[in-house]
């Protein structure tokens, strides 16, 4: 009798409704439920489902407070990714860690290039990988054509629903290639030709994926001794073109040093006005790509920052804190210890990469290393 009743549910529970329920589940549950039946296994791995799940994930208010902080230690050659979230209801002035993931290929030091929609892009020398930590899957990209040092950027093309990596080689001349996850291959672009020959990139990789573009610090060499003031070059993943964005007028000098990041969806820069970094100013571009809308958010004396993550390098106790310029509240991220090349970014759980095959031999070797090791600590 009960069996008949239960069977009736599935008789009139249309697939579209089952999908509505499934796309509200956390990733870990969905991976487990792939074992429920063949139909569910195939439903969960379709591109359409991965997209609807991502849309749901992005709309959850709890996901707007999740951060991922990466920290690499040159000495032990291990990189840690900590997922933390800010529980607004808590009167506690700390973020809470909800995951601590050790990067699967820990025998070499990978650098985080960027992350979008829960997908991370990392590189080590010429090897680039795309990694989704919550489904525990990564793929290795084929190598680019250029042999010289390159600068990378990672982003997402909303028009074609495609994740892309841009590779910029500056010597002998500027060559820009783009890798598309959908195509599974690198492609040359003519974007390099649009840059003036003296263009010099001042960064190792692109930062702040905002309004469909990734941003680089650059300057232009006029003569051997003369350079222009630094500026921002944005690379749009939709039309694959560079655009020039100038920095706030009041901080422009040739010696200006700055970092780019995204702040509440806007392009922002931290400008260090002195060689000795005792203070910095944070500027936010209120309207993207409109120079006049740079507005100073705050000047920070490096003992706090606002939903801006800053490493406070006090001699005894270096730590990462978050500071909200509106409420002037400092929160401890709970991450201590000397860190090199740390970076923080917003994080959302997603199934991206689930339906991509793992193509390259080197990845298979690394995968067996990962699965076999017992000291890996995941959630």
């Amino acid at each position: 009798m009960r069996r008949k009743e239960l069977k009736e549910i599935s008789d009139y529970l249309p697939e579209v409704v089952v999908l509505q329920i499934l796309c509200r589940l956390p990733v870990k549950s969905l991976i487990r439920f792939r074992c429920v039946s063949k139909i569910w296994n195939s439903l969960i791995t379709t591109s359409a489902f991965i997209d609807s799940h991502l849309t749901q994930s992005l709309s959850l208010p709890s996901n707007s407070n999740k951060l991922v902080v990466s920290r690499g230690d040159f000495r032990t050659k291990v990189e840690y990714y900590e997922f933390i979230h800010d529980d607004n209801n808590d009167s506690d002035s700390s973020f809470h860690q909800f995951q601590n993931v050790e990067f699967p290929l820990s025998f070499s030091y990978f650098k985080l290039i960027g992350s979008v929609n829960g997908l991370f892009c990392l590189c080590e020398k010429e090897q680039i990988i795309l990694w989704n930590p919550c489904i525990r899957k990564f793929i290795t990209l084929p190598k680019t054509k250029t042999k010289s040092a390159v600068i990378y950027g990672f982003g997402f093309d909303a028009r074609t629903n495609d994740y892309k990596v841009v590779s910029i080689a500056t010597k002998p001349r500027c060559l820009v290639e783009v890798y598309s996850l959908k195509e599974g291959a690198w492609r040359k672009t003519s974007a390099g030709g649009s840059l003036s020959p003296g263009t010099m990139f001042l960064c190792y990789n692109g930062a702040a994926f905002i309004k469909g573009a990734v941003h680089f610090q650059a300057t232009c060499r006029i003569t051997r001794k003369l350079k222009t003031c630094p500026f921002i070059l944005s690379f749009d993943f939709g039309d694959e073109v560079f655009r020039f964005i100038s920095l706030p007028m009041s901080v422009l000098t040739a010696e200006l040093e700055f970092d780019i990041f995204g702040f509440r969806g806007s392009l922002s820069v931290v400008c260090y006005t002195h060689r000795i970094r005792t203070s910095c100013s944070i500027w936010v571009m209120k309207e993207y790509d409109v120079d006049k809308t740079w507005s100073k958010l705050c000047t920070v004396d490096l003992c706090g920052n606002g939903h801006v993550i800053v490493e406070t390098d006090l001699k005894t106790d270096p730590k990462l804190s978050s500071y909200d310029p509106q409420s002037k509240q400092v929160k401890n991220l709970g991450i201590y210890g000397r860190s090199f090349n740390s970076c923080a970014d917003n994080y959302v759980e997603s199934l991206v990469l689930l339906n991509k095959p793992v193509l390259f031999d080197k990845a298979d070797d690394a995968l067996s290393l990962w699965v076999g090791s017992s000291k890996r600590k995941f959630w």
Partner: protein
Amino acid sequence: MKFCTVKQYFDDENNNNVTNGIATTVIPLPNKHLKIKANNKEMEQYEQELLRNVMPQELTKLILAANYLNFKEALDFFCRTVANAIQNKSVDYVRKFFGLESDFEPGEEEKLCKEFAWSFEGVDED
């Protein structure tokens, strides 16, 4: 928009899902939703109450009603409630809940379970 669909819903004789119980739960929902939208804790309490008083079968009927009425907030709410209820459950529990049977070839299911062994950690006992 909502009123027209509701009237149609009751007039539609082919719709076997209409019962008074469902109508009384779904229709007052917009008001309740507006009242408790701002407060997450109250939402959680209401969700818990719903789960205790309503059988899973009823919940799926509520979902179907909300879907038919094109009532997005109710659909989102009920689906999320079901998702929260099943998220930490075992594969067997979920099969029983949705009335599904395994259609895997012998050995196929084991292979998948082994591959995703990490996702089985911390699952509720049946």
